[in-house]
């Protein structure tokens, strides 16, 4: 009994420590955003400002086209995720279900694209997009992000489809569905947790990109994504870290909301009851 008590104490202590480590940077981001710039470097540091600058968010929104940048980020992420999921669902399902000659090698070949660093792809992609006259257009980063997202999501979804009993689509086919119909009507609804997790991964990847946006969106700031926009707030000699932190919080909020919305899908168990 004593041992159980000690186990619980250790467990909770570890959990609290881990949470503290993970949450502290976010907490410090909030503290930085709400503090006056001249209070940021004082020692000992203040863990909560005397007079929090609650108006900083409204001020940032008024001074910079943050909402437009967020809109651009959202369009790019939604476009990249839609394109990637369409390709990945079909590719992952095919790799999971159809045994074709060279299928395994093809799957591994898709994964090699993920092994290349993004910076390595920037130059050839820039060349391609310039030829297609996409430089400066959001389409450039939608396509570029898709090249990053598709390899990983294809394998992620293949792994998920592998866990779904084949009998489900066989039952659907006996019930009158075509193979594609069985996938759409039965396998995809059952895969909702896997699809949500995969889409969220792709969304975060696209949302957090800076390198591609910096390279391809070189024209007017109305085309910038949020990450790109925030970096322009950093001056060569002077940077207002409080404003940058406030803008960062505004940019992080959508991801947080999307995560909260998708959380119920991320929890597995929807397939419970399909079989024994």
């Amino acid at each position, binding site marked *: 009994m004593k041992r159980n008590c000690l186990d619980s104490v250790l467990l909770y202590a570890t959990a609290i420590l881990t949470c503290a480590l993970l949450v502290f940077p976010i907490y410090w981001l909030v503290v930085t955003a709400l503090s006056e710039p001249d209070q940021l470097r004082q020692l000992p540091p203040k863990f909560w400002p005397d007079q929090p600058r609650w108006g900083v968010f409204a001020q940032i929104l008024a001074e910079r086209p943050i909402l437009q940048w967020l809109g651009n980020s959202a369009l790019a992420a939604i476009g990249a995720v839609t394109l990637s999921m369409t390709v990945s669902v079909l590719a992952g399902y095919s790799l999971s279900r159809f045994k074709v000659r060279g299928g395994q090698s093809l799957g591994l070949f898709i994964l090699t694209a993920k092994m290349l660093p993004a910076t390595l792809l920037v130059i050839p992609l820039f060349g391609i997009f310039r030829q297609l006259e996409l430089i400066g257009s959001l389409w450039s980063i939608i396509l570029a992000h898709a090249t990053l997202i598709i390899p990983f999501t294809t394998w992620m979804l293949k792994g998920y489809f592998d866990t779904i*009993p084949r*009998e*489900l689509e*066989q*039952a*659907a*086919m*006996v*019930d*009158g*569905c*075509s193979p594609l*119909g069985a996938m759409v009507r*039965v396998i995809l*609804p*059952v895969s*909702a947790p896997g699809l949500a997790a995969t889409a969220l991964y792709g969304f975060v990847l696209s949302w957090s990109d800076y390198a591609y946006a910096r390279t391809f969106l070189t024209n007017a700031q109305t085309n910038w994504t949020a990450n790109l926009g925030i970096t322009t707030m950093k001056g060569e000699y002077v940077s207002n870290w409080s404003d940058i932190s406030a803008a960062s919080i505004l940019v992080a909020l959508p991801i947080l909301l999307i995560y909260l919305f998708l959380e119920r899908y991320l929890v597995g*168990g*929807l*397939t*419970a*009851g*399909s*079989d*024994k």
Partner: protein
Amino acid sequence: MAGIRIEHVTKSYGGLTVLKDFSLDITDGEFVVLVGPSGCGKSTMLKILAGLEEASSGKVSIGERDVTDLAPGDRDIAMVFQNYALYPHLTVRKNMGFGLKMRGTEAGEIDRRVTEAAKILGIDHLLDRRPRALSGGQRQRVALGRAIVREPLAFLMDEPLSNLDAKLRVHTRAEISALHKRLGVTTIYVTHDQTEAMTMADRIVIMKDGEIQQIAHPDTMFREPANLFVAGFIGSPGMNFLQSPVTSAGNGAQARLFGQEVPLLVANASTLAGRDAVFGLRPEHISAGPGPVSFEVQPRLIESLGSEQYVYVDLPPENRVGQTPHATAEEDGRGNALIARLINPDGAPLAERLTLSFDPARLHVFDAVTQEAIR
């Protein structure tokens, strides 16, 4: 409803042939059970019938229609899967009505047929639940309901009871038989359980290594097994096997079993004279006490099941069969032992030494080389 004709169907995966020249005629309304050990090709045959696997060669007809190249949904069959394969995101009602919806049946008709099928199966109170909220037995009924609601030409069932506990399995087995009698739909049922095959089938098709071993009524299969494999597979406990050379004796033949000459009463036994034969004796055909052929034994093990007892005794070395002819793992090593199934309603303890006996007319005779039955 319709009959089913399977003609010379084979199935190969690369160089591996899992189904060899399978032919079977199933009459309208018949309940046929495909039975055999794991890997014998029975489930593959069922999937070929359903259209879920493509035959390497051969032809499948349902009714008068050649369905060999038709998609599963165009064959007008319904299938019950081993793991039920219920759609987890749909309610029981939608699960059962899914096939009708795919065929464009109007909503009112779907509802009427689902409700009717649910009443037959006693699951009408579960219609608005999701599969995860059901017990194993209830899921099994929903899977059956999904099949019957379509009113198909034939039911295909792939080991539908194997995930149920023993008690529920016996109960559901009887229910499926009753359902078949009520609906009269042609049914092909796959199982590895010989008890299910014996109790449910109009005809049993017993398979081994992709080949049909025998097609017969359950009683015929029990009484007149075509070969050693069938003899060993059908019956619980399985048939005992003893080996002995056959010698001529007057107009007939005899074998030496348990140290004594035993006349062989099957008509063609003398064709085996001078050669080894395998003799099959069912455990229930061995009696306690003296009889036509009696022998004294010291039981190695006695298992009591209440009203009956299984007595395990060692076979004389000269009667041991070198290799057990039946494939199931639990029966490996049976070549050295004989099981007697003794009815013992009073539960009286058995003595340390026992006299057992059997009637030579009960002996099944098999050619030791071809393993075929000699009659």
